[in-house]
């Protein structure tokens, strides 16, 4: 029976059948609520916008539905039994009648990894939406509905990304969060910088998406499926080799890396994230710090088996080095910025670098744990920055703000920021301390090209992190009280009417959210020690149960993983214990320098900068750091400008060569011929008649020639 008769017979009977041929422990269709609730909230916000709603209704709808998503995710977690389930929700792309059966439905793959992610995504989403209900209130009646609709779109797409059971649905989420990010970065759409930043974010992400799309194609051609559970089965069976060229499987990790580096803002595609700070601050906290940018780590963790297929782990080594270099580069830029939101943005890029380093040095749980703690403490930092920006009419320059913690109504903001800073700086016994340590220690003990150096580099970066973090806190929250208002006047009713600017402190919604998230950032240390049957506790359990574990036996044997990952010692101690001391020490040094330059003797920072700038040998350093190592300028000169010129050249070619010369030229041939014989026809009847007679005579002669002389015979 040929394939085609098979195909046609299957087609004849192809009624839209619900997809239900996979194992399902119990009916979990309600899991779809995680997707549908944000979608409903999107529609509700759209209706509010149409009815020109001027109340906070859209915010409450969004908060409510996101809370519903969180509760659903919680139920999923409580119902979860390893190794997880596939839950079919809706039929989507289904070409199962095709030989080889391409199928990608809206189905969930619920395992511990996706649960870990969906829990903090929906949880933080709810809290930050609540915060935004107050933060965005100056836009009530104008952009308020649009903002919360964007947040709903984001949560919808992010949930799809995390819960997807196949790469195509993941791709939907992947592009969806990119679009939500475009929507929200460009929220202040009359600001040209915001529009440009939004466009840049989308396009840079699209470059990454290109990688993801090609990776999906390759997965399908190589493994014959895009569904995770089948993918794992095929990889375990090792039965895929005959279906494909040998290069194709090897290429998948590199394409996935391109995708992840785009979404998670790593070298060379990190440039969009700092610009994305043009969006409202809750967006920066939710999308550009806590959740969306970790999608890249999620993707690599999810597809980890593909990375381990290569026994040499070349791709993983590159991941580790790119992560480490990005961490260092972003930290050096962050040190020299004055805009506190930008500093946090570069810090996010830097911390994401750590997470990739964790993936690269084979500690997926370390990476995932850092994602988890970072989500809390960086959200806390952004939200407090947002509170400052909100209260001081858009002021973000750390030189123009000081002593916030002594001001009335700013206590929670200041101390929430302090907690965030402590975690980010890796202060002992905070959550960031443990999660960063998990990665640093592995960098020293895992075998890989120059991983020792990578470890030292990361350690140095940790010191820089501590410095720039506390630079912000000491400047903004500590020291004597003084401030200048920003130039953002949309809060005029609080401000300039009596000639003096009065900052307005955050109220209940913002304060409570900042407090909860700051406490969460502290508590995030606990899971590391829960259930501590294994090192890494609850987090490690969650990660190791999933595809992100290194535990696929066939693969482990192939990769000779045990030898690769032997727990060596660091300076003669258990690496994790040693690292507690070393990284703690480095953090202290960073904080101490920050305290010296930005708390006790702030004039020294100015004179240091002046001293560096005055010497020609060192002047380039602060300049380059402040100008972000000229990366944007380099990209512009190397990529955008040539492309722009090239496009104009192409346009010229299209108009002149293709259209005018080739097309119009061809069309002009008959006319030219006409011009040539035109003198014969001056329009008089006689000329026409003569021409006609001549023509007939010519024809007669031709006929005679043919007939009598056989000229053409």
């Amino acid at each position, binding site marked *: 029976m040929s394939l085609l008769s098979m195909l046609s017979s299957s087609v004849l009977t192809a009624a839209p059948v619900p997809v239900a041929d996979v194992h399902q422990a119990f009916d979990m269709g309600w899991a779809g609520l995680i997707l549908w609730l944000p979608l409903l909230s999107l529609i509700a916000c759209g209706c509010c916008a149409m009815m020109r709603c001027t109340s906070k209704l859209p915010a409450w709808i969004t908060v409510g539905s996101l809370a519903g998503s969180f509760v659903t995710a919680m139920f999923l977690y409580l119902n979860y039994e390893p190794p997880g389930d596939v839950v079919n929700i809706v039929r989507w792309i289904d070409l199962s009648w095709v030989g080889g059966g391409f199928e990608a439905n809206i189905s969930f793959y619920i395992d511990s990894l996706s649960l870990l992610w969906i829990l903090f995504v929906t949880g933080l989403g709810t809290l930050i939406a609540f915060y935004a209900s107050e933060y965005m209130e100056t836009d009530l009646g104008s952009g308020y509905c649009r903002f919360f609709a964007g947040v709903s779109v984001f949560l919808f797409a992010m949930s799809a990304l995390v819960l997807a059971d196949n790469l195509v649905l993941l791709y939907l989420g992947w592009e969806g969060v990119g679009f939500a990010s475009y929507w929200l970065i460009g929220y202040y759409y009359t600001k040209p910088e915001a529009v440009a930043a939004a466009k840049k974010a989308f396009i840079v992400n699209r470059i990454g998406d290109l990688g993801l799309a090609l990776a999906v194609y390759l997965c399908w051609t190589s493994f014959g499926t895009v569904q995770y559970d089948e993918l794992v089965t095929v990889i375990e069976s090792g039965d895929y080799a005959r279906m494909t060229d040998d290069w194709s499987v090897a290429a998948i990790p590199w394409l996935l890396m391109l995708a992840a580096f785009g979404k998670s803002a790593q070298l060379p595609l990190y440039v969009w994230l700092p610009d994305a700070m043009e969006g409202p601050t809750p967006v920066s906290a939710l999308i550009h710090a806590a959740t969306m940018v970790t999608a890249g780590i999620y993707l690599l963790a999810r597809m980890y088996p593909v990375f381990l297929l290569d026994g040499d782990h070349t791709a993983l080594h590159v991941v580790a080095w790119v992560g480490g270099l990005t961490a260092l580069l972003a930290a050096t830029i962050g040190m020299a910025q004055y805009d506190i939101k930008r500093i946090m943005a570069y810090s996010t890029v830097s911390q994401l670098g750590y997470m990739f380093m964790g993936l690269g040095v084979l500690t997926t749980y370390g990476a995932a744990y850092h994602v988890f703690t970072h989500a809390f403490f960086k959200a806390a930092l952004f939200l407090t920055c947002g509170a400052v920006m909100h209260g001081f009419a858009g002021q973000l320059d750390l030189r123009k703000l000081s002593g916030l913690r002594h001001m009335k109504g700013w206590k929670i903001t200041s101390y929430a920021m302090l907690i965030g800073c402590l975690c980010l700086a890796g202060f002992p016994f905070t959550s960031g301390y443990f999660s960063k340590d998990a990665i640093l220690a592995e960098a020293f003990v895992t075998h890989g090209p120059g991983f020792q150096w990578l470890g030292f580099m990361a350690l140095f970066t940790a010191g820089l992190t501590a410095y720039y973090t506390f630079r912000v806190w000491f400047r903004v929250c500590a020291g004597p009280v003084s401030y200048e208002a920003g130039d953002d006047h949309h809060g005029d009713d609080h401000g300039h009417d009596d000639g003096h600017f009065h900052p307005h402190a955050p109220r209940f919604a913002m304060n409570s959210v900042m407090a909860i998230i700051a406490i969460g950032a502290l508590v995030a240390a606990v899971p590391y020690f829960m259930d501590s049957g294994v090192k890494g506790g609850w987090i490690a359990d969650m990660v190791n149960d999933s595809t992100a574990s290194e535990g696929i036996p066939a693969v482990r044997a192939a990769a000779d993983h045990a030898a690769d990952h032997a727990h060596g010692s660091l300076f003669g101690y258990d690496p994790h214990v040693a690292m507690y001391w070393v990284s703690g020490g480095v953090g202290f040094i960073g904080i101490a320098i920050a305290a010296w330059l930005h708390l006790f003797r702030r004039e020294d920072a100015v004179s240091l900068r002046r001293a560096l700038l005055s010497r020609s040998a060192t002047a380039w350093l602060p300049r380059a750091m402040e100008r972000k190592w000229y990366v944007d300028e380099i990209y512009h000169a190397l990529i955008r400008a040539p492309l722009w010129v090239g496009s104009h050249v192409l346009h010229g070619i299209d108009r002149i060569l293709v259209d005018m010369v080739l097309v119009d030229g061809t069309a002009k041939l008959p006319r030219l011929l006409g011009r040539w014989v035109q003198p014969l026809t*001056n*329009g*008089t*009847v*006689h000329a026409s008649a003569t021409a006609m007679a001549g023509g007939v005579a010519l024809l007669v002669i031709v006929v005679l020639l043919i007939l009598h002389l056989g000229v053409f015979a």
Partner: protein
Amino acid sequence: MSDLLHMTLASAMTEADLARFLVLSSLLFAVGLCGFLTRRNLIVMFLCTELMFQAAVIAFVAFGRWHWDFSGQVFVIFILTIAAAEAALALALVVLLHRRRNTLDADTWTELHE
């Protein structure tokens, strides 16, 4: 002339006879054509076209007789009828043109020129 009549009535028509008719026809046509091309008076030009018509008519009749097929004769009747109609039309046009430019010179009309 009586010779010609005799030949017409006789059953046989030689190739030479046919040739004579055709020569006459082509001479008539040539006269018409030359007249058409050289004269500028619209009415004379019209007369010349009529001459060319008659040349065709002669050829029709000759070939009809040669092939012993009366379609030739039938066509001649048609052509004469149409020529009459056409003459009416064309002379009307000439009058019209004359009224516009007050001359019968054909070369004053160059609207066909691009």
